């Protein structure tokens, strides 16, 4: 039986004894012990050679390497995203040839390991020593009709173009284009189709609708995965060794490692470097995300309210 009659209605705040969660405390303790063990190892294991590491990881060539890595990351992402937008629009085209070509491109470049691709783009010089723009099978056609000569109008020396930085950039960009295309496409498709309809009903053209209405809203959805892509790209610059691009961070750190036989300290150094650079990029991503969430989530809608509530419920009990 309730005590409704005995308790006077209390106007004061409820201060209830919370439920105890011993499991959580145990988990916290285990994590703390593990962390301590890790620090212990770092501090006491002389394999790490902290002095040596710190000295070398801030040496001049390494700093230059870090700069190359950042420049390569930014360039590859920028060009890759442009390529990705083109591919995404092609994918969404009503023309089956165009959208099929984009599909094949994306399928192909997503399935191939970047390291293989990089090696390949560096080897393009080996396929032809000169690159020529012209008609396919021109020679054969000429032969067929008994003519001499060819139909080619622009010749470049393949080995001059596809080397070092440019070869690396080419490989990374081609690959990034495929990933970016999928992200951009998902972003475009995530925009409420009612938005397109509203813009059309106002008489806006397809191009304007895309630029003014769809893409700005798609950005919200595009930025987080693109941030991940950028970090992935940062890390994949370590694969440039297949080209090779030698003034890049990972190469320089490993070079020190193999010169001095201090391989582990230099591996730790590269972990630290990549952590630092990746964290930098993550901070950048944070600000971009903030910029593009303008008008979203400032005040909650009825549905968002319902959603938040359920979340609150989920976490307080």
């Amino acid at each position, binding site marked *: 039986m309730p005590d409704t009659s005995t308790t006077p209605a209390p106007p004061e705040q409820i201060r209830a004894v919370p439920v105890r969660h011993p499991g959580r405390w145990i988990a916290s303790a285990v994590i703390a012990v593990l962390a301590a063990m890790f620090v212990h190892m770092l501090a006491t294991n002389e394999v790490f050679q902290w002095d040596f590491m710190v000295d070398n990881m801030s040496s001049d060539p390494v700093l230059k390497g870090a700069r190359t890595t950042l420049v390569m990351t930014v360039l590859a992402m920028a060009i890759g995203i442009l390529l990705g937008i083109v591919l995404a629009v092609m994918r969404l085209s009503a023309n089956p040839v165009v959208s099929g070509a984009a599909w094949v491109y994306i399928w192909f470049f997503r399935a191939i390991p970047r390291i293989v691709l990089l090696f390949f783009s560096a*080897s393009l010089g*080996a*396929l032809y020593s000169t690159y020529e723009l012209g008609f396919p099978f021109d020679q054969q056609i000429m032969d067929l009709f008994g003519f001499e000569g060819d139909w080619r109008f622009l010749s470049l020396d393949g*080995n001059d173009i596809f*080397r070092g930085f440019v070869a690396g950039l080419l490989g990374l960009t081609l690959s990034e284009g495929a990933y970016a295309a999928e992200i951009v496409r998902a972003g475009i498709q995530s925009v409420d189709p009612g938005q397109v309809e509203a813009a059309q009903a106002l008489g806006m053209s397809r191009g304007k609708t895309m630029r003014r209405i769809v893409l700005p809203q798609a950005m919200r959805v595009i930025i987080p995965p693109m941030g991940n892509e950028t970090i992935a790209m940062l890390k994949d610059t370590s694969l440039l*060794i297949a080209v*090779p691009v030698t003034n890049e961070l990972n*190469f320089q750190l490993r070079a020190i490692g*193999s010169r001095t*036989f201090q391989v582990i300290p230099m591996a730790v150094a590269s972990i630290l470097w990549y952590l630092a650079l990746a964290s930098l990029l993550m901070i950048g991503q944070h600000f971009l995300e903030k910029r593009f969430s303008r008008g979203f989530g400032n005040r909650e809608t009825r549905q968002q309210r319902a959603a938040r509530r359920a979340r609150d419920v989920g976490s307080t009990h």
Partner: protein
Amino acid sequence: GDDPDDASSSGNGATESTPSVEVDEALAARVPDEIGEDGKITVGSDTSYAPSEFIDEDGETIVGFDVDLFSAVAQKLGFEAEFESASFDSIIAGVGSGRYEVGVSSFTINPERLAEATMVSYFSAGTQWAVQEGNPEDVDADNACGLSIAVQRGTVQADDITARSAECEASGEAAIDIQQFEGQDEATAALVSGRVVASLADSPVMAYAVQQTNGQLELLGDIYDSAPYGYVVPQAETEFAQVLADALSALIEDGTYAEILEKWGVEAGAIDDPAVNPAG
């Protein structure tokens, strides 16, 4: 058997019987206990370096003249050599940490390495240049300023070419465009395709590459800077190193050494005085 020069292209480097070697009990007795425990010697080796050490056509067996030779050394001591693929960078550290008992991977003996480990010389290799057939670009090893040249990353040739490039710059000429690859095969491929005009590598490796590319390349100039290859053992194991050196001497004496080198066509690099930590 086949012509030894052809050993790997015909793929029988592994199957061709290596000369069997008798155990030298006196030497065997001097092997330190911690190595002797399991009757095997674990060897770390970067197996992408034909013809010294590479993977045979079956995709598993590690073959090469380094392999044959060290196996014979191990047999002399009553052991079996167990080769394991490793990344080149990690072998010396791996020997230091006890992961490998010996490192055999065409390590040229130099002061930096001697500072990290004890080494036993067993072969003499120098640096050999190669260019495309007929030397179309007229490369001169002593005047390579401004050219594109391929080497394998982390080799003595990488240091060599870097030094040459620095000289070029010092004398006011264009630096050498050094292309450092992960493997000598890629460096060679770059040379074949004309991405670079020359490549330099250890003499046996370069000879093998020229042979494998069916006349697309040719050797340029003589072998220079000859220096010994050495087995890598932990710094403190000087005793064990001496045993290895003595076993090698025994192999040289009984002719097995020459036989193995001839089998691989690298007899030019034979030495007659294996030593622990030879000076310079």
